């Protein structure tokens, strides 16, 4: 990244502003929780405002930073959960305020959102990340391949497996 041309500060902020909605959607699909999603967006922006983004592939890098921040957060939570388990003698589940709480929803919407969040929670992190990049953010396989440092063929097969897994888990939830 250090050898790539990156955005100047003002351009970066304008770019981030234009991508904020997409970034929040991506973060929600990664975390399954609105609170976690907004925290993740904030952490991602803090990181990106320091390091900037390459002008030739800003979106892929933005999502990659977001993904890495989320994986770091999950690692921290696992450590905290393990400590809590040791102290209290019982397992602690991850925080999953999966019901979007500040949006007016119908009961049916709420049931579907609960189901999709639960189904997403059952996916491996690899599958969740790649599906969010392709389905939610519309990145091409080539862009995902660059962001995740994978061959395009691997991206194609992994997306397909992630999709079918999500459908299977969703059928179990609905």
């Amino acid at each position, binding site marked *: 990244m250090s050898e790539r041309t990156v955005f100047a*500060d003002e351009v970066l902020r304008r770019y981030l502003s234009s991508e904020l909605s997409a970034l929040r959607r991506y973060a929600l699909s990664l975390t399954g929780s609105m609170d976690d999603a907004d925290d993740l967006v904030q952490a991602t922006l803090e990181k990106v405002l320091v390091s900037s983004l390459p002008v030739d592939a800003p979106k892929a890098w933005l999502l990659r930073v977001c993904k890495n921040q989320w994986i770091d957060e999950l690692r921290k939570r696992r450590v905290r959960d393990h400590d809590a388990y040791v102290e209290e003698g019982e397992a602690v589940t991850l925080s999953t305020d999966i019901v979007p709480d500040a949006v007016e929803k119908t009961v049916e919407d709420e049931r579907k959102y609960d189901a999709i969040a639960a189904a997403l929670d059952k996916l491996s992190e690899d599958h969740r990340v790649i599906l969010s990049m392709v389905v939610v953010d519309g990145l091409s396989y080539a862009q995902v391949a660059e962001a995740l440092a994978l061959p395009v063929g691997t991206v194609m097969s992994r997306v397909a497996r992630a999709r079918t897994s999500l459908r299977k888990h969703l059928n179990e939830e609905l």
Partner: protein
Amino acid sequence: MTTEQDLTLLSAYLDNELEGEQLTALRERLLQEPALRRELDALKGTDSLLNDFAASIDGRPLPQAVHGMVAGSGRSSAAKLFAVAAAVFVVTMSTFIMMPKQDDLAFLNAMASGEIRQTETGSVQVIATFRQHDGKYCREYVVPGQHAVACLASGGWQNLVTAEVQVMPEGAFIPASPNVPETIDRYVRLNMSGDVIQGDDEAALISAEWH
């Protein structure tokens, strides 16, 4: 029975990643195989649900902290520059203000957003490229003495909105008034259609000479 290979093809089809013979062959199979169509519809339904779920965050207000990180600091950094300039800026405006004529805007044909070029009179920078609602390509840029938006018309690049800026001796730009950049920002916000054009898309436009 749908095979794993079929599911990979259907998935790539949904993502517009198939082309040529593979695409033609799958389309023909979809016409002839109801089970394959049902699989495709099921995958589409899952995608749709995932997108609806992700979009549900749109209705939740953006946290103030996040908003401030992206939107607020541009003005505040300009304000800081202005404050610094008030203390150290001792040049005469008429010496440094240079309003470029329309035929001076040829640099907009070739420079990428974010690129900075040094000229005899100071720095030239293209800030962003976007398309207006009327379909014209436009570029926001800064040259010594001016922060502007120019759009491409039949006669070349034409300035549509401009704001005077002062120039510090080393060439850094500062706004003549804190309101000036907001004028530019407002024009961009109101007239931009879609997203900022950048990266490969912008490079393709430049190499195709904006056709």
